[in-house]
């Protein structure tokens, strides 16, 4: 646990809070989604008065402590893979702290795949991805009651294209605060 927290700090320091840069297989030079733009325009409500991991935007998504930047909530995976990078783990460790310090908050982790392969197998692979995220969050302080998972397999692509650029955006797990 201590070493993981150390890595978190290192990652944060080195990456200078570049949010997308902490993801594992980031689609190269992705423009920020329109959602992110809206979220960033909302000023955080007085961070100093809140617990360290307890500031959220109006949609309930957590900020990185002491900043007006939202914690990344989408994590990308390699083809047919369900493992998370060290950068992903560093961000997820912060999500786990958010959940541990705010026991009333709940999340739903959605697992997604690209369109290659059969739909049922991809449903299982999507669950493997959401479960990997869930297991890590529980190991880092979140409770089982806070974390639910759902796999959508290949049914809900972020990008409906049929090439590697689209596929890499679709192999993902999303941490959705409720």
């Amino acid at each position, binding site marked *: 646990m201590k070493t993981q927290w150390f890595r978190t700090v290192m990652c944060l320091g080195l990456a200078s809070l570049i949010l997308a840069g902490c993801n594992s297989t980031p689609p190269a030079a992705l423009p920020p989604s329109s959602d992110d733009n809206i979220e960033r325009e909302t000023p955080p409500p007085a961070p100093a008065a809140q617990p360290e991991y307890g500031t959220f935007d109006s949609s309930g998504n957590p900020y990185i402590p002491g900043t007006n930047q939202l914690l990344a909530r989408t994590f990308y995976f390699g083809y047919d893979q369900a493992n998370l990078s060290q950068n992903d783990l560093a961000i997820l460790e912060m999500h786990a702290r958010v959940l541990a310090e705010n026991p009333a908050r709940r999340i739903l982790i959605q697992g997604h795949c690209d369109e290659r392969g059969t739909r049922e*197998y991809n449903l*299982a692979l999507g669950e493997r991805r959401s479960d990997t995220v869930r297991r890590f969050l529980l190991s880092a302080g979140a409770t089982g009651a806070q974390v639910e998972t759902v796999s959508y397999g290949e049914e809900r692509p972020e990008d*409906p294209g049929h090439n590697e650029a689209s596929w890499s955006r679709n192999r993902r797990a999303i941490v959705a605060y409720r």
Partner: protein
Amino acid sequence: MRSLLGRLPAPIAVLLLLAAPVLHAAETLDTVIIDAGYDKQTRVAIVPFRVDPQVRAQAPMQAILEFDLQRSGQFEVLEASSMLSLPSKPSEVLYRDWKILGQEFVVVGNIVPGNSGGQALNLYVFDVLAERLLTAQTIEGSSGQWRDIAHKAADIVFEQATGIPGAFSTRLMYVLAKNLGSSGVTSKLEISDSDGERVRTVHESSEPILSASWSPNGREVAYVSFDTGRSAIYIHDLITNSREKIAEFPGINSAPRYSPDGSKLAMVLSKDGNPEIYVMDLKTRALSRMTQNRAIDTEPTWSPNGQKIAFTSDRGGKPQIYQLDARTGIFDSRLTNEGDYNARAQHMPDGKHMIYVHRKRGVFHIAWQSLVKNDFRILTQTSLDESPSVAPNGAMLIYATQIDGQGILAVVSVDGRVKYRLPSSEGDVREPAWSPYLSSVVSTSVISNP
């Protein structure tokens, strides 16, 4: 399109241009023949049916019958303009006229008013070389059932000529998705005739629908939908148009497949930690767990005799197809060895072969394999092929693929030689499931004194 139409016999070209757009309003499946296959097709003449003036509906029954035979790839249908005589009853058939034209079979018919309203087709099939009437049958239906009568006639002609029962009176079930990747995404579970006509919607949702499966008698279907925000398995009664949720456990609820006797439903549940195969007794709703493995186990499919369940598992590191005993759950064997991705098997009706999704050099195709001897073939040349489903007569299979970025359905004969496509007029279509033989909605009787 133009060049394709130019190569097609006239009746098909006419049907492609005229019939499909007017028969129904919403999204439709069109038919595009890619490769009519066989070098030596059976030569059949279908003489224009004589229509009794009292029958008011001038439906294109004959065109539907001809198009069914054409699509099968096994027939070369003689154009009416080449015919030397136009008999409409047995006494008018001169075998000599058809021998000169090199025909093997002649089909003669007349459409008359039905006994209880509607219409009836008196159908006669002749073997020209043997100079013999093979069958004489009356197919009768209500005035709205002319399509059913035509498909039934095609089944009869196909069986007389090939010895294999026709499967034109069957239906296709598939999922139509629109606006994927946007907030307006919708999914529809649709059922059409075997030629893509007469589409009806079984279920519509803004959430995903997948994995639809026919009950053996064709009266109900099972499928997965995410209507509650997570996967659940539903059984939908097609006659009462009502549905019942039968599985919504934590985690995955998917891949329902009816046992051949209809008493059980195999399915995949991950309620105990990871995806495992279960069998539900549909009477008691009791669940039996069939697999115990930390790997992904999914896509169960029953052998035609109901004794085995084949399934996909990555227990060996990559997805392959395995088999277990359907009664005891005892592991039986691994069935696939070719390549590093084989999934979603379905047995052929003979129980001796199966079809499945096979990845070769990163491209997904439909493969066919013998279960009794070493024989393996790749049937499709398209890419991203998935969800193969075989017709109940074992002659053709339908699958999902992509052409120019659009999800379409495609049909291929089991020997890979005949191909046609069924693109939707709108959206992406996928997850096709070919129905079993259905109980006939039209009545058929043998004509005693033809």
